[in-house]
């Protein structure tokens, strides 16, 4: 018996069975207060069709899954190195090619063209709306948070505050708030963009200057607090924000400059192009920033703040810059939300949302613009798919179980994210081998 337990493969088989048992319970039917155990018994005993092949009880299906998982595990341990070697050999040439500048530009142009044609391919109104409200807006939010978390290494748990400021600034400029806009006038929604950007960057500076003197965990806690403060203000400043009922009456996006008159109107497609334009703009700006003097200062601060000071970098200045620049794209996301859904209320801007955005950044790869872009699109598309065509037994609240599980799996197999930045991969490699600054942070070995 002991010999059997000592065999690592026995334990791995048991782990596979346990993992699939958990998955069976998670995806199974819910219990109720009359039959509290139904969630468990039903998860295993309920009859299901096995991919339409034959009918059986759920436990059979998950038993097969466990065996498949065990087989993959066994294959990976036995042949993983060979597979990796073969993969890196075949991928070497394409990877070298993508490093060349003309190839990169070519890929970028192809991607933009594909993105521009997308609303003509995807004509389902659900998906057209989702591309703007759920995918486009979250790409903007994730790109902005990536500047703060990925580039400057500041864990911000209150990022949603900037999103809220952008949305409420739009409502203010268009005269939809109880607080009148300057001289009681009102502007087209399009003109809310510069105002919202200016206001969120100001908010970034105001929130950042006092808080960014803190480091690590302390900063995370204070930003968490600030995020909550903004939401509570929105909820309670009835005379300014309209309180918990929020603000309606925001007009559709429109632009009137002399002869140029354009109304975005009801359908999602025009909004899609506006969002796409700003996503491309922020992609370009953030890529340029990453390799600029400012980007190098951010990297230095992230790696070792004392050393950064010793070479003459003012940490506070560059951290506040990261806050303000990251806030800009969140502010624009706020304008899009307000200008398209026409209705904003404080309950949207929760801590949950801040954490969702952080998940997109971590999943995609902190500090990697391409990774964050892909990560945000993948996760948001997947969760929209679950809402659009929910599989049997799926409840909307389950989403976070899947996201959590996804993060756990990511942290084990790809800790640097889906498309890691070159530097992050090194950082995590160093931390795992017990060298470098990350380790110092963990052990509190800094003076």
């Amino acid at each position, binding site marked *: 018996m002991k010999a059997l337990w000592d065999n690592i493969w026995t334990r791995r088989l048991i782990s596979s069975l346990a993992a699939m048992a958990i998955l069976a319970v998670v995806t199974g039917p819910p219990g109720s207060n009359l039959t509290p155990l139904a969630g468990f018994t039903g998860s295993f005993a309920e009859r299901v069709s096995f991919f339409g092949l034959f009918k059986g009880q759920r436990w059979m299906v998950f038993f097969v899954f466990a065996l498949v998982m065990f087989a993959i595990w066994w294959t990976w341990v036995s042949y993983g190195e060979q597979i990796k070697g073969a993969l890196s050999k075949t991928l070497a040439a394409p990877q070298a090619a993508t490093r060349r500048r003309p190839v990169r530009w070519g890929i970028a142009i192809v991607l933009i063209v594909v993105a521009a044609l997308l609303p003509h391919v995807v004509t389902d109104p659900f998906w057209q709306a989702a591309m703007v409200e759920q995918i486009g807006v979250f790409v903007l939010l994730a790109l902005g948070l990536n500047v703060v978390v990925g580039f400057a290494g500041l864990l911000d748990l209150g990022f949603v505050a900037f999103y809220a400021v952008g949305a409420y600034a739009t409502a203010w400029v268009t005269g939809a708030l109880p607080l009148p806009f300057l001289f009681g006038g009102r502007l087209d929604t399009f003109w809310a963009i510069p105002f919202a950007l200016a206001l969120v960057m100001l908010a970034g500076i105001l929130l950042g200057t006092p808080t960014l003197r803190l480091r690590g965990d302390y900063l995370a806690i204070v930003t968490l607090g600030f995020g909550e403060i903004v939401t509570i203000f929105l909820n309670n400043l009835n005379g300014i924000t309209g309180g918990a009922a929020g603000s309606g009456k925001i007009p559709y996006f429109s632009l009137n400059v002399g002869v140029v008159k354009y109304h975005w109107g009801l359908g999602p497609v025009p909004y899609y192009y506006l969002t796409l334009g700003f996503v491309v703009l922020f992609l370009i700006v953030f890529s340029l920033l990453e390799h600029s*003097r400012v980007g*190098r*200062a951010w*990297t*230095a601060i992230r*790696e*070792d703040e*004392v*050393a*950064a*000071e*010793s*070479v*003459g*970098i*003012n*940490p506070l200045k560059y951290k506040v810059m990261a806050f303000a620049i990251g806030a800009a794209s969140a502010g624009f996301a706020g304008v899009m939300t307000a200008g398209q859904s026409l209705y904003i209320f404080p309950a949207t801007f929760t801590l949950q949302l801040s954490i969702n955005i952080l998940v997109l950044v971590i999943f995609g790869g902190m500090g990697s613009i391409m990774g964050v872009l892909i990560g945000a699109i993948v996760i948001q598309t997947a969760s929209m798919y679950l809402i659009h065509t929910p599989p049997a037994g799926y409840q909307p609240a389950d989403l976070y179980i899947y996201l959590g599980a996804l993060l756990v799996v990511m942290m084990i197999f790809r800790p640097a994210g889906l498309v890691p930045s070159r*530097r992050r991969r*090194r*950082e995590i490699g*160093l931390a795992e081998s017990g*060298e*470098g*600054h990350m380790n110092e942070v963990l052990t509190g070995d800094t*003076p």
Partner: protein
Amino acid sequence: MLEVHDAVVRYGAITALHGISFEVNQGEIVTLLGANGAGKTTTLRMLSGLHAPQSGQIMFEGQDVTTTKAHMFTSLGIGHVPEGRRIFPQMTVEENLEMGAFRRRGSYTEDIERMYETFPILKERRKQIGGNLSGGEQQMLAIGRALMGQPRLLLLDEPSMGLAPMIVDTIFRIIGEIRDSGTTVLLVEQNAAQALRLADRGYVMENGRIVFGDSASNLLTDARVRAVYLGENVES
């Protein structure tokens, strides 16, 4: 060049420096000696702006720098090689050197080449990341990075810490060369014998006070120094 007058540094209720005064003159190597906890590192942290003194004054080239912020010191002409080296672990050797020139305007490629001449091993490792260098190579990189800021005064905090004796010899030879090329050096060291052989003058610190200072050759023969820091028996 650098004058410290009666500087007091407190960490909360604990007084780390009880009013120390000393000076460093143009073109010399001055060393601060002392046991663990004597206040050597606190002194250097104060001189690089990481911890402002509660009272007292620091003058650099006739300018009061007592409350100057840490990131301004490079521009003033003071380079700091922090304790424990603190290179950027995920940047390559070359990127680390470039970071050293962060406050400079214009081209500095010539200076990077000069660093590679001074530290040939860094040229071999130029594309490797800092975290994968050996301790001695990291120390050389930290010194090179500080020199990239073109300092007139270089503060070195325990450059021999944790290094093999042969590497320490190399580092000390290079510190001598830095002085000869016109940069003044303030060296904090536990390795008193080697530091005093290299230095022009030295100060001995105990419990947050400077107990005495003299020329390095006098200190080397001083009975008290020999007993406490060079580990020799006074009677013999």
